[in-house]
């Protein structure tokens, strides 16, 4: 009745269900109407094509930051620096977007590539430090987040502009936004970036599962000693893994810079795109398809939540709690698996 495969698919579904269930219980306890609350959430995410567009807009960077974390984890690295890599990617894409006047076929790809390169560079530093000096990537990436935050602010303020809080808008030729989509979705900010995100999910899957490079990266991630014994260069693969992960994160920044916003404003704190990427990756079991699905769930919950206070009076934080619970339940899949197997035994 339940094969291993169905159980693997069932677990996230059950987790989401349990998370929402506990969320509903919390709403009841605090005197809200859960039907109204979740109704508002649904309306806010899919109510009409505008909200749908916004949901997709939100999902786009989540896919990429999720891929970034997932890619690193698949190669044995914990990249907490996605946040910082998003910043530098955003900065690079906007910089290229405002600094040049080029035909779109050159300008847009150039801006996207710049973001990927900037993110890759930001991943290179912890990568090389780990490969050459054995410095723990977690601390370096945490530090690099702060460095990215303050440096991009300073660059926006003093290099790209003269003392302004935000850059100019990027040239139309570097923009991912589309009038066509905007019209379709009553001016949501959904943009072509979602296609890039899908493409990158495909690329991640392809690199890891189909290429010799991916084989090496995974091998090094699982067992560096054996990989070294088999003639692979452990250091090179660590650096490369961090760079590819960083490039995905940089692209997430480009989605914001070239798609959603079209500019970069100085920031007081983190965007959380990177931190939420950790959750997305983990919920998606570090697989490409899983990340895409998890990003959709996150985007839906986040955008839908904005509608909850106005319509149902429920604070948006309820959704944070629900998300946390879903992550817990997925992580504790052992428990769910155990219950399912119990169930199965008794069914027989």
């Amino acid at each position, binding site marked *: 009745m339940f094969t291993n495969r169905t159980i693997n698919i069932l677990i996230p579904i059950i987790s989401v269900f349990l998370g929402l269930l506990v969320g509903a219980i919390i709403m009841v306890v605090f005197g809200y109407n859960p039907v109204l609350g979740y109704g508002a959430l649904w309306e*806010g995410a899919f109510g009409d094509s505008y909200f749908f567009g916004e949901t997709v807009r939100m999902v786009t960077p989540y896919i990429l930051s999720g891929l970034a974390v997932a890619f690193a984890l698949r190669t044995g690295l914990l990249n907490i620096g996605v946040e910082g890599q998003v910043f530098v990617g955003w900065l690079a894409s906007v910089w290229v977007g405002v600094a040049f006047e080029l035909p779109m076929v050159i300008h847009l790809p150039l801006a996207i590539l710049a973001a990927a390169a900037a993110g890759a560079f930001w991943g290179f530093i912890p990568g090389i430090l780990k490969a050459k000096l054995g410095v723990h990537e977690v601390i370096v990436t945490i530090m690099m987040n702060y460095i990215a935050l303050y440096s991009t602010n300073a660059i926006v303020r003093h290099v790209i502009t003269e003392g302004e809080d935000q850059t100019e808008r990027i040239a139309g030729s570097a923009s991912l936004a589309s009038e066509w989509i905007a019209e379709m979705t009553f001016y949501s900010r959904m943009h072509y970036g979602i296609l890039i995100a899908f493409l990158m999910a495909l690329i991640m899957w392809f690199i890891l599962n189909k290429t010799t490079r991916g084989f090496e990266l995974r091998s090094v991630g699982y067992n560096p000693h054996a990989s070294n014994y088999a003639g692979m260069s452990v250091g090179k693969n660590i650096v490369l893994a961090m760079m590819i992960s960083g490039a995905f994160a940089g692209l997430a920044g480009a989605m914001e810079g070239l798609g959603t916003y079209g500019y970069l404003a100085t920031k*007081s704190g983190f965007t959380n795109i990177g931190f939420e990427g950790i959750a997305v990756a983990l919920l998606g079991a570090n697989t490409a398809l899983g990340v895409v699905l998890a990003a959709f769930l996150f985007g839906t919950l986040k955008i839908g939540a*904005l509608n909850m206070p*106005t319509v149902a009076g429920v604070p948006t934080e309820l959704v944070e709690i629900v998300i946390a619970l879903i992550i817990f339940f997925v992580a504790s899949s052992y428990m769910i698996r155990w219950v399912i197997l119990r169930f199965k035994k008794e069914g027989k």
Partner: protein
Amino acid sequence: ACGSSDEGESSGDGGDSNESGGEAEASDDFSVAMVTDVGGVDDKSFNQSSWEGLQAFGDENGLEEGEGYDYAQSDSEGDYTTNLSRLVRQDFNLIYGIGYLLQPALEEVAEQNPDTNFGLVDSVAEGDNIVSITFKEHEGSFLAGVAAALKTETDKIGFVGGEDGDLIRKFESGYVAGAKSVNPDIEIDIQYAESFAAADKGKLIASNMYNNDIDVIYHASGATGNGVFAQAKDIKQNNPDEDVWVIGVDRDQHEEGKIDDQNVTLTSMVKRVDVAVNEVATLTMDGDFPGGEVMEYGLDDDAISIATTNEDAMTEEIVSEVEDWKEKIANGEVDVPSTDEELEEFESSL
């Protein structure tokens, strides 16, 4: 302005319906809403003040919260546009964006929705259906500077900014100009925490400043200022005779300065966003939406003022001198600088 009219034409009938829509608006089904920045309507700052303005407006006109007036809370930068658009789609007639951070989002949404009227608080946005509401914070800050210069016993005062940028520079310029006008030799230490939410950084900066004999600090730094208050109160607690002062911002921060029966809040640069928001809403309801205009509120509208709650600290002398300078600003005798360049000019003219 030229650019925006071009685009107005390109969206064709949108412009027409805007005009007709604007005039046909009857006061009985008028509705107004606002989008906060990440501070939220209880930030004890301009978001809260704006919301109070809307609530007052609602009360005066018998509107119901949720129908007649409402707000949407933003949790991150990405939510601004979503919230604005959502309110448009809920058919609010006038929608405010609170805070300069909303400028790009508001411009974008306003352009897409020419039928709706928008108001932007704290910054200038372009668009025929947008009214920009700004404040002459530099004037208020000037008076804060005057008060600081009069209060200090060490002739050293400090300024703590949140994120460096045009808006906070305006505070800084006014403050420096005010202080120097009273005492050209005064030393002013200016520091930015690079965040509106770094209480620890605020405390470090304040501690460093008070250590260096600075006795009055003006903060324009949101929650970072919590750290400034914490440090001042800490000093006061240890030595009730030591005079250290904080000048609050946006609202009267008298509460924050309380320690036992003393208070470290010298005064606050109060910005009555509520007054402005209420007034513009009323104008709009009456069919006089000042689209495309910049409404600048200052001392003369009582939208900017200096709090005198702490009567022990704000002695009559100080208050009367502050009043004198206020007079001078009102009658144009003093032109308060609002940028670094203007400040430089101002200082050289002293």
